[in-house]
C-alpha cells in the first residue's frame, strides 16, 4: 500500500463572522489548500468533508455535493462525514483510507461549521445532539455538564484541582496569542479563569471552548504524487479510530477516554512510534478537563497525573511534551466539524517549521487527537516529516 502525505493546507480565520456563510468558509479553506499544494482543482479525485450538524445550525444537509459544487469540483465523489466533534478528524481518515486503498491518488479532506447563524440557545441544543438525546439531554444535561461530571470524578479519584484545569486554559490562551487564525489571541491569567462565571460546577466559562465559525482543508496525495508535486510533504504514518458507548453513564470509567486509548494504540503501532517520540500534540480540549484526560489516555503521563503534569509545565511550548501549540479548541476556537482538520493543519505547519512564534524547534513527529461528544468516538493521527522505514 502506498504512503499518504499532506501536500497542501488551508484554514480560515476562526471566530464569529456575521458577514460570512457556511459555503464562504469551506470554499476559502479549500481554495487555499489547493493553492498551497500547487495543483489544479481538476486533479482532485474525491472529497470528504466533516461537518457535525449543519442541518440544525443552518438547516442545510447534502453537504458533500454543496461543497463540491461551491468549490468548482462538481462531478467527483463528495461525501460528508459525521461523528459529532470528531467529524473533521474522521473525514481526514476517510480521505487517507481512499488513497491507501488505491481508488484515488489526490483527495481533499475538509471540515466546516457555521455555528453563529443559530442563537446561542439553539447552538447549545444542537450540540447536545452529540449526547444521548433520550437519556441524557432529556434531563437537562448540557455538554459542559457532562465534562463537569467527569471532572468531579477525576478530582475525587486523583486529586486533580480546579486550578490545574485552569492552567490548561492559561497555557492554551498563551499559545493562541501566537496563532493569527485563533479566535482568542489574548492571554488570560489563572485568576481570570478561576473568577469567570460558573457554567456547570466545577467548570467555569474559561474552562470551555467557544462557539465558532470556521473551516479548514488539507490535500492528501499518494507517495508517488506527493514526491512529484511537493517539496515538503508531511506524511500520515498512523491512523486509529475507535468508538465507545454514546452515553457517559454507560462508560467503564469516567476518568479515562477508552476510545482515545484504543485509537492511539492503533495509530502508535501503525506508525511504530511511542509517546516519547512525539515532539508535539494537538488534543481535543473542548473543556480543560478534556485535555487533562487526553494527555493521560494518549500515554503522555500516567492515568490520574494529567493535572500535575500540566502544573509542572510539561505541556507548555517550552515543556517536554508541548500540547495544543495552536491554542487548542479553547483559544483557537471550536467550529466542531472543522476542528479535526484544523488540528492537522497545525501539525503540518509545525512539521514544515512554519508555526512562527509557537514553532517547536526541530519538530519531526506530531499527533492529533479528535474526540466526538463526551468520548463516544475518537480518532488519532500521527504525522511525520520523513517516512521512516
Amino acid at each position, binding site marked *: 500500500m502506498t504512503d499518504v502525505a499532506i501536500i497542501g493546507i488551508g484554514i480560515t480565520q476562526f471566530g464569529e463572522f456575521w458577514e460570512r456563510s457556511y459555503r464562504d468558509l469551506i470554499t476559502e479553506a479549500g481554495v487555499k489548500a489547493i493553492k498551497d499544494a500547487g495543483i489544479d482543482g481538476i486533479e482532485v479525485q474525491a472529497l470528504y468533508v466533516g461537518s457535525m450538524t449543519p442541518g*440544525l445550525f443552518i*438547516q442545510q444537509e447534502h453537504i458533500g455535493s454543496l461543497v463540491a459544487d461551491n468549490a468548482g469540483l462538481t462531478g467527483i465523489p463528495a461525501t460528508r462525514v459525521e461523528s459529532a466533534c470528531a467529524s473533521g478528524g474522521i473525514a481526514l481518515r476517510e480521505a487517507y483510507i481512499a488513497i491507501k486503498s488505491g481508488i484515488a491518488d489526490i483527495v481533499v479532506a475538509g471540515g466546516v461549521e457555521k455555528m453563529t447563524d*443559530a*442563537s446561542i*440557545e*439553539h447552538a*447549545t*441544543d*444542537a450540540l*447536545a*445532539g452529540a449526547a*444521548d*438525546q*433520550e*437519556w*441524557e*439531554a*432529556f*434531563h*437537562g*444535561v*448540557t455538554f*459542559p*455538564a457532562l465534562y*463537569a*461530571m*467527569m471532572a*468531579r*470524578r477525576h478530582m*475525587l479519584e486523583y486529586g486533580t484541582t480546579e486550578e490545574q484545569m485552569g492552567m490548561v486554559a492559561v497555557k492554551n490562551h498563551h499559545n493562541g496569542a501566537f496563532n493569527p487564525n485563533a479566535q482568542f489571541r489574548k492571554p488570560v491569567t489563572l485568576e481570570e479563569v478561576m473568577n469567570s*462565571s*460558573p*457554567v*456547570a*460546577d*466545577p*467548570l467555569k466559562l474559561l474552562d470551555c471552548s467557544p462557539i465558532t465559525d470556521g473551516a479548514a482543508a488539507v490535500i492528501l496525495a499518494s507517495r508517488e504524487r506527493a514526491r512529484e508535486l511537493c517539496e515538503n510533504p508531511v506524511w500520515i504514518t498512523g491512523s486509529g479510530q475507535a468508538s465507545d458507548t454514546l*452515553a*457517559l*453513564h*454507560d462508560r467503564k470509567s*469516567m476518568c479515562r477516554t477508552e476510545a482515545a486509548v484504543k485509537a492511539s494504540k492503533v495509530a502508535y503501532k501503525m506508525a511504530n512510534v511511542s509517546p516519547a517520540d512525539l515532539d508535539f500534540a494537538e488534543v481535543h480540549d473542548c473543556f480543560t478537563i478534556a485535555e487533562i484526560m487526553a494527555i493521560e489516555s494518549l500515554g503522555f503521563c500516567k492515568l490520574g497525573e494529567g493535572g500535575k503534569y500540566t502544573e509542572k509545565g510539561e505541556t507548555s511550548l517550552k515543556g517536554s511534551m508541548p500540547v495544543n501549540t495552536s491554542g487548542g479548541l479553547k483559544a483557537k476556537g471550536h467550529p466542531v466539524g472543522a476542528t479535526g482538520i484544523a488540528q492537522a493543519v497545525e501539525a503540518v505547519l509545525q512539521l514544515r517549521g512554519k508555526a512562527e512564534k509557537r514553532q517547536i524547534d526541530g519538530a519531526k513527529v506530531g499527533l492529533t487527537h479528535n474526540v466526538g461528544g463526551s468520548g463516544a468516538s475518537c480518532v488519532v493521527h500521527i504525522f511525520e516529516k520523513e517516512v521512516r522505514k
Partner: protein
Amino acid sequence: MCGAHLREGGAEMTEGLALHWRLLQPRYNLIGNVCRTCGQHYFPPRNICPACRRRGVIEKFKFSGEGEVYTFTVVRAAPTGFEYQKPYVVAIIKLKEGALCTAQIVDCKPEEVEIGKPVKMVFRKIMADDDAGIIRYGYKFKLKI
C-alpha cells in the same frame, strides 16, 4: 431557526407525542432490562445485551429506584426548556442493581449533594410546556437523608 425546538419532539406534535409515549414505561417506572444469560441489569433499556450479544436473553426489569450519587454537577447555563429550573443538579446515579443513569437531583440545595450519598427515585415534571404542548414527566432523584 423557525422557532422550532431542536430538542426531542421537534416541531411536529404527533412526532413528539409518539416519541415520548414510547418511552413512558422506562421514564415513569424505571423499567429497564436484565439479561437472563449473564445477569447484568441495564438502564436505560437496551435491545441487545452488549456483553452476550446473540446469546443474550433480554427481559424487562423494574428497578427499585434506590441508588447513590456517582458524580454530579450544578447546571447554571441551561438548555431550551430548562431555563426556569436553573441552577439545578444533574447527576449520574449508580442504581442498587448496578446500572448507572443520568437524572436530576431535586428537593435539596445544590451544596447538599455529595458523591456517595444515597438517593431514591421520585416522579416529577422534567420539562415545562414546549411548542408541542406536551408536559414531559419522568424520573428524578432525591437525597434519602
